[in-house]
């Protein structure tokens, strides 16, 4: 790490951020302020009294505690699953590692209202597993409901956040550090824990924070698995009271909790450098030979993929076949699929573009402004989707009526919602770009903005693309904003799934859900085959 520290020291000579970077970053920040601003307007609509009442309710704090516990557990579990998966699929001779990488990332697109339902039908007290075990005398399985079920469901459907960012961190890493460690006599395990893992930290952290905030925001899985969280409380307020003030107060508390988590994460960041220390050309790191360890490794990958992907796909196929046998006919899905792909691709492009100035500011010009702008991008991420969607309904309908309920508005909403995903991935990739490369471009006469566009962006491309892919995948399944802000009549695969499941037509939900998973496999596959080219 000696070389890294020297480079970090050089960074301390701070340049004032150029306007070409600062202005777009501030613009993004302004957009990200909309949801909290809306919540504040609604929360204080009737003065302090009501805010105080909700704040001081012991029940509110208990639920907040339960949410925090769930988020913490899910994050730890997701990291524990994803980091070994990332290492196995990037750095070892694991048979079929590219295939595993694609399959293991796909659970991300399974909507939590489908995933939770599948888990209940498979592992419920009288679910499919119990049915299979009944000949052995198993009458009832232990409760899947409550904390364990909710934590399991959320872990299975969120660990890919960490997997994707950890993989791109591993791939962008300078192998020289590991080689030096090995040459100095450290064993492979020690090298992994003392050199590789610390180098992966920004990547893991970028994914972990997304997992934590997602776990706070989720409604679908926790309500199906009967665990009472803060977001569920917010939904109950919106759904049954038709009163937006208490919901907004709870939403603001969630924003405050997010700010606390971000502050905590910021303190662990430190000032280490993560870019290559040598001037040499990029080269692939050594591949670890697994030998006999191949079998347990395959078993591990296999079990994760079986639980998180094969099980839901299996249940969906079962619903589909049962429905088809029962006389249900397959409905055309092309329009919905095309709309899904179109909206998600636009969202991915716009979000990746918006994330760039924010991440570049944070990496190259760290300071209070950059820190504030970057944190702001995350603030609304833990909010349940409905609160975020309503905030944009409020601003859109009242202040931008021309854009309200157009595709542009919908893409904007997605960008506001999913900005942190792109910011995190882009930031950890930019950290791996050596400043001296940029300095060389500058000294050869390139401007700062041109340097960013022609030097840093291509070098950070794997991370930027990983961020865009994350946005694409999560946009595909997004529901509240899609329902409320899309052009009237705009149908996507997610809305088709929702429509069918909310009326308990499971067979009709199965086909769009399976298509959703198939479509998401394409960008994952493209991202993974690109690795070979590098």
């Amino acid at each position, binding site marked *: 790490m000696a070389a890294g520290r020297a480079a970090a020291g050089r960074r301390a000579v701070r340049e004032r951020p150029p306007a070409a970077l600062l202005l777009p970053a501030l613009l993004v920040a302004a957009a990200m302020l909309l949801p909290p601003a809306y919540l504040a307007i609604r929360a204080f609509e009737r003065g302090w009294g009501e805010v105080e009442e909700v704040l001081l309710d012991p029940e509110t704090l208990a639920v907040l505690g339960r949410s925090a516990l769930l988020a913490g557990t899910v994050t730890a579990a997701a990291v524990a699953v994803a980091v070994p998966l990332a290492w196995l699929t990037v750095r070892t001779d694991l048979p079929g590692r590219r295939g595993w990488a694609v399959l293991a990332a796909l659970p991300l697109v399974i909507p939590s209202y489908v995933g939770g339902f599948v888990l209940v039908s498979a592992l419920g007290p009288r679910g499919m597993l119990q049915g299979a075990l009944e000949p052995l005398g198993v009458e009832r399985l232990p409760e899947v409901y409550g904390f364990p079920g909710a934590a399991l469901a959320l872990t299975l459907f969120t660990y890919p956040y960490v997997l994707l960012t950890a993989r791109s961190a591993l791939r962008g890493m300078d192998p020289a550090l590991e080689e030096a460690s090995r040459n100095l006599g450290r064993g492979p395990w020690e090298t992994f824990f003392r050199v590789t893992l610390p180098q992966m930290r920004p990547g893991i952290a970028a994914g972990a924070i997304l997992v934590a905030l997602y776990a706070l925001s989720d409604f679908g899985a926790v309500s199906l698995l009967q665990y009472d969280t803060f977001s569920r409380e917010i939904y109950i307020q919106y759904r049954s009271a*038709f009163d937006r003030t208490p919901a907004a107060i709870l939403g603001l508390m969630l924003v405050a909790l997010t700010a606390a988590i971000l502050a905590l994460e910021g303190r662990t960041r430190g000032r280490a450098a993560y870019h290559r220390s040598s001037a040499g050309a990029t080269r692939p790191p050594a591949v670890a030979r697994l030998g006999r360890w191949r079998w347990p490794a395959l078993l591990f990958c296999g079990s994760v993929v079986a639980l998180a992907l094969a099980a839901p796909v299996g249940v969906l196929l079962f619903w589909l076949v049962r429905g088809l046998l029962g006389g249900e006919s397959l409905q055309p899905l092309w329009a919905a699929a095309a709309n899904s792909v179109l909206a998600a691709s636009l969202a991915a492009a716009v979000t990746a573009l918006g994330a760039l100035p924010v991440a570049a500011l944070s990496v190259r010009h760290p300071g209070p402004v950059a820190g504030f702008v970057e944190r702001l991008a995350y603030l609304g991420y833990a909010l349940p989707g409905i609160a975020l969607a309503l905030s944009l309904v409020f601003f859109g309908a009242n202040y931008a009526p021309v854009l309200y309920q157009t595709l542009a508005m919908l893409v904007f909403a997605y960008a506001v919602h999913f900005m942190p995903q792109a910011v995190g991935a882009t930031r950890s990739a930019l950290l791996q770009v050596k400043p001296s490369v940029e300095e060389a471009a500058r000294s050869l006469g390139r401007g700062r903005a041109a340097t960013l566009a022609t030097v840093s962006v291509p070098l950070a491309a794997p991370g930027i693309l990983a961020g865009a892919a994350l946005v694409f995948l999560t946009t595909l399944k997004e529901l509240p904003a899609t329902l409320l802000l899309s052009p009237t009549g705009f149908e996507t695969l997610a809305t088709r799934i929702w429509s069918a499941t909310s009326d*308990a037509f499971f067979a009709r939900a199965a086909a769009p859900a399976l298509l959703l998973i198939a479509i998401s496999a394409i960008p994952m596959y493209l991202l993974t085959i690109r690795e070979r080219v590098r």
Partner: protein
Amino acid sequence: MGLLGGAVRLWAALVVVAVVASCGQPPPEQEGARRGGGTTVAEATGGETTAEETTVSEPLTPGEGNLIVYSGRTEDLVGPLMEQFEERSGIDVRVRYGDTAELAATILEEGENSPADLFFAQDPGALGALAEEGRLRPLPRDILGRVSERFRSPEGLWVGTSGRARVVAYNTEELDPSELPESIYGFTDPEWEGRIGWAPTNGSFQAFVTALRVLEGEERARAWLEGIQANDPSVYPDNSSIVQAVGAGEVDVGFVNHYYVFRAIEEQGEDFPARNYFLKNGDPGALVLAAGTGILDTAENPEAAREFIRYLLSEEAQQYFADETYEYPLIEGVEPAEGLPPLSEIESPRIDLSDLSDLEGTLELLRETGVL
């Protein structure tokens, strides 16, 4: 730009294909309405649409107005009706589907800029909330007159379009109807411990609790909730999960709306082991609720909206509700689906839906008893 090469270009090509495909499609609302179980309204009514029926009302000239509907009822259920109305009236209908309560909140947030003409809601609670904020405009007498007073707003601001009965779904392998109590209070008996499923966050359930408060008084309502709580019920997010759980034998009984059992049977076959049980003697547990609709104060096209409501209350649409969604028709002369007792035979409590407006009080009671 080698790094941004092949993969991204390939993806861009795919997106172009998607855009072309999506432009080549008919407008989504038409395409969508063609599905919905593959049944058109004409098929549902036995294809007996005569020339008279097609002139349900004065047809407006096409393009004269388009109608924007916010529908809390899903496309799978009401899409075919929208399509049929377009054909009959020549009015272009654009529908935004969503959750009833979320759409109500959306209309409130949109304020005077709301593009919606009409709100089609799952339950009267959401309509009541809009009415209270002054967001609904009065309906003409000819519309209100079609539906019994029980199922409409006393101020004439909204009207029910189809009825749903609260029932007890029971597992037929575990229970015989004769073992079920006549009153919802019977389920507070300790013999039901661990055997009940309910959905306290569900709007229909909450409407039932409101009815319980109105009919039996605050204390008796509290006693019922506490009695059920003492029996350690399983909590589900909605009616359909309860019916699935009852069918799987996870719980023996569940408090639900009547049509979910029918849909489960339609999808999973006659041997799906759950059926409905109607409580007796005017018990609050046999409450009949309604989905309904109202016209917004900001509607730009109220006449088209009125046409639409007239269509929803026509024989054709009411027959569709009976046959396709297994709900109760609310106008005279249309019979409910086979296997359902007629509305007049359900021993439901004497209460108007407009008496169920105190949601706030119900939520408070649910919180105080620890149910929510």
